[in-house]
């Protein structure tokens, strides 16, 4: 399984090269990988449907962080969708891009996304799952922002990233809590800990964090707005990521964790309310859209809401319905998106008002859309029919407020029937229109939707296959054995059948009278748009303004205010800690100790203090530098006197070099000007004086506490036998703590490059030509 996931990432790098040399065939070539994975998955199906396939790759010394994979019924269903649809999408993308120069990047990103998504559904470790989760968010961001030259695309991509990425952070917190509470990081082991998890006081926080993660990823209310926005991406992306796979990640997560966390009142309430609101909002907003892709996007939001509702319900029937619908939806929605893209490609428009009578010009498209539309509407013989039957059955036997739930689901399903008619009857029937630049799309654009549409029919006609696949997935969702019984055609009249029929009739009536709905839908649209999306805009817009204000205050470009902030913050934290924690007191015999000062030490102190006074009084830069030098050299002598020759030597060298550097810049600097008013000088003196006093006091206090540390003697003793050196300082630097030193010299090197850039690349002085000078002369 690791190979299957890694192959996608590795081949993603090769895709641009392939696209450069074989621009026409590159999409199809790239499709070989997902096709291969699809076949491999079918090969593993028997094992997966039975005990499941497990793989473990420990890679980190941290406990709990392993790269482990688990292929069971649910993973298998998702992985088959990801690889199967992925193969078709890559072929489709090949035809869609028509060998454009940028096509290679698209294949690469699609492959990388596919690998991330496969990893996500196969992962058995919470941390691994999270990493793949984030990878899908990032690849999705890159794909939504495909037309990065356009402001609109960038904004949509950023919006999607912030929403899903923010949810991802919440999810990480939730997953870590799950791991801590349950004591296991393997998802397969979580179900056994269900009791521990649900009785824990952290259950509700976990649930809410999970909700944030899943709802943002799967475009649930109130985070639904990013998905219609994401439609600026090329259609292959919308069909793949934003209908069939990535947006299902949140649903998948809920399904995966429902045996461990589900079945409680909190779970049902949270996810059923979210799901139902999303189902209705998405469904009814989809009726208002004129853009085919946006309509399908809202319809997808609605479908995801339906899935979340079913998972929230959590009964056996609901799990079966969710599995069936997951499969059916991936097939028909993927197909409809691809049809929309093909029509856009052929006619240059996606506007429903400008499209009609396309059946004559695009018979293949009509067939594909028809098959998908029938499945979406839930017509018998197709996969969507069985799913809808089970949804109603789950609602009727839910045991709660049955009628309310059934009614709400009915209202949501009616919208699907209307959308199905929009995508079939409205654009394909009637008198045909003439387009200026109409060109019929080739086989590459039709293969995908046709295969997916036909699969919807095949699954309807082969109930055993569907039942096996969906049953295994439902078992993983429900957490107990499940057997689904499906029929090609219903043999008796059941309440579910009547509800299905009612849905279709209502859908047809609504479709005929859709213009009457406009005012209502407008009202709904306004509310939905002004609500969450507006809040998001304000938040995202306000953040930079807030950051700007804080930055202006802290980083105003004056060196002394930077120093002030650093010293002030440090002083405050230190003083607070000292006071609050009640650190060791000041030794009482401080003054008595002063008498121990020897004469030469006293002289040194006087010299340093005199240097300091001179710094404060200096009127020219030269005096200033020399006075600073006095202080520096004085300090170095202190080091010598108290037995730190290494330190002293370094201090001497640094002081010397410092003087050299100052001399270099000295006469390029303007003359000495005292800029600060008296008040500022006073304030600065107080802060620095305090800082100095606190440091001195701290040192006195700290040295007064008897040091019980084996380190000092250890280093002194071990230096010779272990480090072959008598200079303990040096042995520590180059041997015992060599790794630290290595980090330090790396930082030094980087700092030098930064300083060089600052000195050489001054704007307005033709800096760029000079940047090369230093190199050129050597």
């Amino acid at each position, binding site marked *: 399984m690791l190979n299957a996931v890694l192959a996608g990432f590795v081949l993603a790098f090769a895709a641009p090269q392939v696209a450069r040399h074989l621009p026409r065939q590159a999409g199809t070539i790239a499709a070989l990988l997902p096709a291969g994975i699809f076949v491999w998955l079918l090969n593993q199906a028997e094992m997966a449907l039975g005990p499941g396939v497990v793989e473990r790759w420990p890679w980190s010394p941290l406990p709990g962080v392993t790269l482990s994979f688990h292929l069971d019924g649910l993973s298998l269903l998702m992985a088959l969708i990801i690889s199967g649809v992925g193969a078709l999408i890559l072929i489709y993308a090949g035809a869609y891009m028509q060998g454009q120069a940028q096509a290679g990047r698209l294949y690469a990103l699609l492959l990388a996304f596919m690998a991330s998504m496969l990893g996500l559904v196969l992962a058995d470790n919470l941390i691994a799952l999270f990493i793949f989760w984030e990878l899908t968010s990032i690849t999705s961001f890159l794909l939504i922002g495909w037309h990065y030259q356009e402001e609109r695309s960038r904004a949509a991509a950023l919006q999607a990233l912030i929403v899903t990425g923010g949810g991802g952070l919440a999810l990480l917190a939730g997953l870590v809590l799950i791991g801590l509470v349950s004591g296991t990081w393997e998802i397969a082991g979580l179900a056994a800990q269900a009791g521990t998890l649900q009785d824990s006081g952290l259950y509700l926080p976990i649930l809410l964090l999970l909700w944030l993660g899943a709802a943002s990823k799967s475009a649930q209310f109130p985070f639904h707005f990013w998905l219609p926005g994401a439609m600026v991406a090329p259609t292959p992306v919308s069909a793949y990521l934003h209908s069939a796979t990535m947006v299902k990640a949140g649903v998948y997560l809920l399904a995966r964790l429902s045996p461990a966390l589900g079945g409680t009142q909190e779970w049902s309430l949270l996810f059923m309310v979210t799901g139902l609101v999303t189902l209705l909002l998405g469904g009814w907003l989809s009726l208002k859209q004129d853009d085919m892709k946006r309509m399908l996007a809202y319809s997808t939001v609605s479908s995801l809401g339906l899935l979340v509702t079913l998972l929230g319900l959590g009964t056996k029937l609901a799990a079966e319905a969710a599995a069936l619908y997951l499969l059916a939806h991936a097939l028909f929605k993927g197909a409809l998106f691809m049809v929309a893209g093909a029509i856009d490609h052929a006619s240059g428009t996606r506007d429903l008002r400008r499209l009609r009578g396309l059946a004559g010009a695009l018979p293949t498209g009509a067939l594909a859309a028809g098959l998908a539309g029938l499945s979406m509407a839930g017509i018998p013989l197709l996969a969507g029919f069985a799913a809808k039957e089970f949804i109603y059955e789950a609602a009727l036997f839910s045991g709660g407020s049955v009628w309310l739930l059934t009614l709400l689901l009915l209202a949501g399903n009616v919208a699907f029937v209307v959308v199905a008619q929009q995508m079939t009857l409205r654009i394909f029937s009637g008198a045909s229109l003439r387009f200026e630049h109409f060109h019929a799309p080739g086989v590459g654009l039709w293969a995908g939707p046709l295969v997916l549409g036909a699969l919807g029919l095949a699954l309807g006609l082969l109930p055993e296959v569907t039942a096996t696949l969906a049953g295994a997935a439902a078992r993983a969702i429900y957490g107990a054995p499940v057997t689904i019984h499906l029929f090609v055609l219903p043999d008796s009249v059941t309440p579910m059948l009547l509800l299905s029929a009612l849905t279709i009739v209502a859908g047809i009536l609504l479709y005929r009278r859709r213009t009457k709905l406009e005012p209502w839908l407008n009202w709904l649209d306004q509310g939905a748009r002004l609500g969450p999306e507006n809040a998001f805009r304000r938040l995202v817009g306000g953040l930079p303004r807030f950051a700007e204000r804080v930055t202006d205050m802290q980083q105003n470009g004056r060196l002394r205010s930077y120093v002030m902030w650093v010293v002030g913050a440090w002083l405050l934290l230190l003083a607070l800690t000292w006071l609050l924690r009640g650190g060791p007191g000041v030794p009482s015999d401080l003054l008595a100790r002063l008498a121990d000062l020897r004469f030469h030490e006293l002289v040194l102190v006087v010299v340093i203090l005199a240097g300091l006074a001179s710094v404060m009084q200096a009127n020219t830069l030269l005096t200033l530098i020399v006075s600073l030098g006095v202080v520096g050299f004085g300090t170095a002598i202190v080091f010598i006197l108290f037995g730190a*020759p*290494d330190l002293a*030597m*370094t201090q001497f*060298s*640094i002081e*010397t*070099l410092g003087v*050299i*550097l100052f001399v*270099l*810049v000295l006469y*390029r600097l303007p003359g000495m000007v005292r800029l600060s008013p008296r008040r500022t000088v006073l304030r600065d003196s107080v802060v620095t004086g305090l800082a100095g006093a606190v440091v001195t006091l701290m040192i006195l206090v700290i040295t007064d506490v008897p040091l019980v540390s084996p380190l000092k003697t250890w280093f002194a003793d071990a230096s010779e036998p272990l*480090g*072959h*050196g*008598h*200079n303990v*300082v*040096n*042995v520590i*630097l*180059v*041997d015992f703590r*060599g*790794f630290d*030193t*290595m980090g330090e*010299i*790396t930082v*030094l*090197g980087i*700092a*030098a*490059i930064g*300083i*060089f850039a600052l*000195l*050489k690349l001054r704007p307005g002085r033709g800096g760029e030509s000079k940047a090369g*000078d*230093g*190199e050129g*002369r*050597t």
Partner: protein
Amino acid sequence: MTSIILVVATRLIFPLMLMFSLFLLLRGHDAPGGGFVGGLMAASAFALFAFATSVTRARDALRRSTFRLIGVGLLFAFISGLPGLFAGSPFLTAMWTSAEVPVIGKLSSVLLFDTGVLLVVVGVTLTIVFAMAEADEEEEE
């Protein structure tokens, strides 16, 4: 602004300073010294040289770009960590040979590491000094 006294003095002091730098590096393991101070010393020597003559000539005397010194120094430090790795110990574990070389003493990976530190310090310091001095000379032109 070239002073004859400075030029003559530099001619005498420059090699001495470089030798002293080497001396500090080699004795550093047993007595005060080491790569860091050695590097500062060598950098001071070249800074003095740049003062006495010009940055261009100082760069010529250095032979290598200051950036290359940084790079090579880091490479030395990194390479010095590998023998430990091959011996099955953690990265950067000090390895000593028993071979006694005159003047240098026992050969070890630690010496290579310290040489790396020296080169980085020389490179960093001179990058800054030269860049500043060059800005200075341009001003004069």
